């Protein structure tokens, strides 16, 4: 198993392996307590109601339980693997809801800048770390990334909002993504 050097991330991967290898219910409880509040919060930030967010979180955690034997720690960290499960549940739920309903959701992060500037720079949390990395990017690159991941906006919605052609939006996302990825690794 690849060690990330971050205790929380390594702990998550160990728990997921314990679920996959031994169907450990204790590990499942611990993983749920570590991850579910973050998953729920992420979904609420995307405009889902509390109920909807909890349902998707529950479904995702049940998938985690059932699929844990497929988790390969050499391929990805537990959180990347769980993230992929959550977003697949999200895509599935959205398929059944119309775009209009989603667009009308009241609660979304107000703007990308809120997300970037929310955390204190002295805070050692993962949130502050990500925010610091985003601040390293030019605004024109961090903004469409936050709009995509945090606000769930499509290329077209981003293009309309910032008044630029789609092709420009795509290349800013691509370039910002590449730089963010280089900084993370």
């Amino acid at each position: 198993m690849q060690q990330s050097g971050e205790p929380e991330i390594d702990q998550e991967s160990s728990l997921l392996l314990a679920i996959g290898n031994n169907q450990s219910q204790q590990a499942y409880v611990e993983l749920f307590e570590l991850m579910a509040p973050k998953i729920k919060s992420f979904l609420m930030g995307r405009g889902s109601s509390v109920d909807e967010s909890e349902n998707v979180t529950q479904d995702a955690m049940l998938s985690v339980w059932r699929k844990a034997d497929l988790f390969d720690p050499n391929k990805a960290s537990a959180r990347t693997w769980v993230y992929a499960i959550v977003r697949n549940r999200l895509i599935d739920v959205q398929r059944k809801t119309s775009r209009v309903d989603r667009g009308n959701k009241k609660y979304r992060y107000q703007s990308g800048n809120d997300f970037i500037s929310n955390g204190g720079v002295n805070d050692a949390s993962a949130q502050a770390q990500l925010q610091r990395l985003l601040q390293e990017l030019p605004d024109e690159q961090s903004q469409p990334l936050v709009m995509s991941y945090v606000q769930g906006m499509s290329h077209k919605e981003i293009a309309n909002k910032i008044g630029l052609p789609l092709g420009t939006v795509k290349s800013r996302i691509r370039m910002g993504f590449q730089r963010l990825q280089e900084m993370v690794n």
Partner: protein
Amino acid sequence: MSTSNHPDQAWFVSYAAGSLTPSFNLLLQAHLAVCSQCRCGLKKADEIGAQFMFGGEEAPMDNFEMPNPQLGVNQNESIEWGKDEVTDLSQFFDHYIGTHLDGLQWMNAGKGLQLCKLSDSDDDKMLMLRAAPGTVLPKHRHNGSELTLVLKGAYFCEDALFKVGDIEDADDTTLHQPVVTNDSECICVAAVDGPLRFSGLLQRVAQPFLGI
């Protein structure tokens, strides 16, 4: 315009963010099933997504409890980059659309070209195109994004050849005119999020009737 036969990485950021409409998700899923390079791109986008999610805040849990692991039905929920094997697209319709290719209702849309609308809303259209060997398609521009996935045969556009499993990624910067190769008919499925703008007068007149 992208000259490669893979969608721009920006698409996998949006896919990983769950911010795409159903037609675009479906097309990308089909391409991911045949393309290990893009599966790698998606995994990278999921890594960043995980940073956003697990680097975010914690919601209050109140009465929200852990689901009993014995609950729930087993769904087909595999992770795109979790598998190494590459599938083929021969089952595309049965698998992704839920109907067989023969069961589609085609309408004629000019010389050598047939169309079939699979879904149609303002910002999310999916259509099938079926073109006879050697067909030259009308030159057109886009008001939004268009992803085209080749299911059968091949076509040239600009200098690139698009074969089965390839995706052509077009947007408002693209003026394009696909030309089907001579050896086989070509069947494609396209996801579109805005009306196409044909540049020829005849096509502009025909466009409202075709409803594309």
